[in-house]
């Protein structure tokens, strides 16, 4: 897994330390702390993991082992409009794969990556539990149900004008 080189600001380090403290710096709270950290930074770059490791007194390797185990955690920054395509069974049998292919084709990025302008990123989700609306696509917090390949362009268009 590659990572982005970035230097944490002192205030950000303090913020992380505060998060760890709010969980009593307990090693068992690692996953909760990582959730919070990802909420703050949007992703979990190496240096965030280093700070978390030292605050909870666990090894960095262990933190990395946990981060890479769970698909909810990401070490890559997501686009401003993260697109998540549900590939759960219900969505699959109702054509999610074709919808996904259409997104990949239009944005010219593979799953898990972000467009060069940092605007969109594509990820796959396992069932958001809205199977009645299959296939389902989420852009940020907004959910689109019963998406067709034709509808993909329209969804992207909604975000096109925003700078």
């Amino acid at each position, binding site marked *: 897994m590659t990572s982005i080189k970035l230097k944490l600001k002192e205030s950000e380090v303090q913020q992380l330390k505060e998060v760890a403290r709010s969980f009593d710096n*307990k*090693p*068992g*709270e*690692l*996953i*909760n702390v*990582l*959730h919070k950290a990802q909420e703050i930074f949007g992703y979990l770059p190496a240096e965030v993991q280093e700070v978390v490791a030292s605050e*909870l007194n*666990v090894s960095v390797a262990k933190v990395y*082992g*946990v981060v890479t*185990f*769970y*698909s*909810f*955690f990401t070490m890559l920054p997501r686009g401003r409009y993260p697109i998540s395509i549900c*590939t*759960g*069974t*219900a969505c*699959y*049998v*109702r054509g999610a794969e*074709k919808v996904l*292919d259409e997104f990949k*084709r239009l944005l010219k990025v593979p799953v898990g990556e972000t467009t060069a302008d940092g605007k969109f990123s594509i990820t796959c*989700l*396992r*069932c*958001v*539990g*809205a*199977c*009645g609306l*299959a296939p389902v696509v989420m852009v940020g917090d907004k959910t689109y149900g019963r998406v067709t*390949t034709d509808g993909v362009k329209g969804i992207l268009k909604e975000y096109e004008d925003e700078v």
Partner: protein
Amino acid sequence: MNAQDLQDEVQVVTTGCFGFCEKGPIVKVIPDNTFYVSVEPGDAGEIIAEHAIKGRRVDRLLYVDPTNKQQIADSRGMGFYKKQIRIALRNCGLIDPENIDEYLAADGYEAMGRVFAEMSPEEAIQEMIDSGLRGRGGGGFPAGIKWQIASKVEADQKYVVCNADEGDPGAFMDRSILEGDPHSVLEAMVINGYCIGATKGLIYIRAEYPLAINRLKIAIGQARDYGLLGKDILGSGFDFDVEIRYGAGAFVCGEETALIHSMEGERGEPTFKPPFPAQSGYLGKPTNVNNVETFANVPVIFNKGAKWFAGIGTEKSKGTKVFALAGKINNVGLIEVPMGITLREVIFEIGGGIKDGKKFKAVQTGGPSGGCLTEKHLDTPIDFDNLLSAGSMMGSGGMIVMDEDDCMVAVAKFYLDFTVEESCGKCSPCRIGNKRLYELLDNITKGQADKEDLENMRNLCGVIRDSSLCGLGQTSPNPVLSTMDNFMDEYIAHVEEDRCPSGVCKDLIRYEIIPENCVGCTACARNCPVNCIAGERKQLHVIDQSLCIKCNACFEKCKFNAVAII
């Protein structure tokens, strides 16, 4: 109606599917709920004349109960409406989940009060055992026995864990319960704590369920404010409180030992059992793990009695089961049916049949751990043991319906893709075996496999099932084995004829234009993303096979059935 000048008094409205398609068309007259079945246009006049004007029922068109041959007029008395019984979902869609008062008004926390006042932990556990409730998370282990084991282990601290890491793709029962009736789970956890001597409860919930998390938090806060959680609950001297822990996107964490490791901040890798969590679980302490739906049944068992509960369902599977009905079915939704109902009733009556009038092919139950059941299983009563012997399993309750357009090899591959991605990697058969199984399936869908590979695959399935560490690996070959058992012809077509009978596997199909049907509208050519369709307006179009990426766009666009999948 208009002809009879009744438009002001009688309204004709279309409604959603009544879920009773075998007897359609159906007409229901409100306010008296009279339900007419198999109505033909000629009958409509009679209904209007007799029922709407004179207030007399047209007996001829009433539904006849198949068991006692009596005509039933009121739809609520009809057998079909008895098919669903809402126990776990009793409050979902009825009460405001963010208002504890509504739960209290619906007998909420009464079971807890009753247990505290009238029962010893042993008696309460006995009640659970007598109810016959089996774990709804998939395995079907008797919940009461589980509680009993945990209660008998001596420890200074014990834990109650609610498994809300619903990970089966296509399943959303637990989410719906937590979003619709969070207190029922909290109440059950307190009862569980009282029974086994635990004072701490943990709910392990997927981070992907923000709404459920939020409603749980509200519910916990309200229950604390009302003294229904915390110290000395209802003056019983019993303390119990609940915390929320978050999953982070790992299906394997539905396995209880993996779930416990995840709650401890570790990689969610399962460990060999024994020791069972009841002996050594969270932080090494005795821990009882049940899933959301199991807990949601508990208050009802104490309110209505074990006997009442055990009166529902089959001999070995008591009560009801919630299913998330999805896929190629008309009434996609959440249903709760008594154990013992048949798949036919679920799919064709409650589910309203197959979408777009297509032919039913298979229904997948139990998610990636389950199997595909077919026509021949439609009349099998659904319970834990029957599904197992049919080569599938109850699982947590996902039910995905497939029609004639679904390729069963591709479906098996889809599930294996899921398993490969979700395998934790700890044991070799699951880590490498499932990968190889996926690759074999992939080869089949590409026409690169032969009959020998099928045998190889069957052996591999057996070994993965026989020697994997946890439930995930032990059940992962089920989608392959059940499709091989039931749809061997499709496998054979792929390996021997390089043909995908359902026209799904891209490498085995090609798109061709049928000259007789093509009118030269250019719709296909204009929508082809790789411009591989040539042809002038009003001329026959031709697809360049060497460039075609099989995106299906031409097929979808053609209004004249001139594009065929061969």
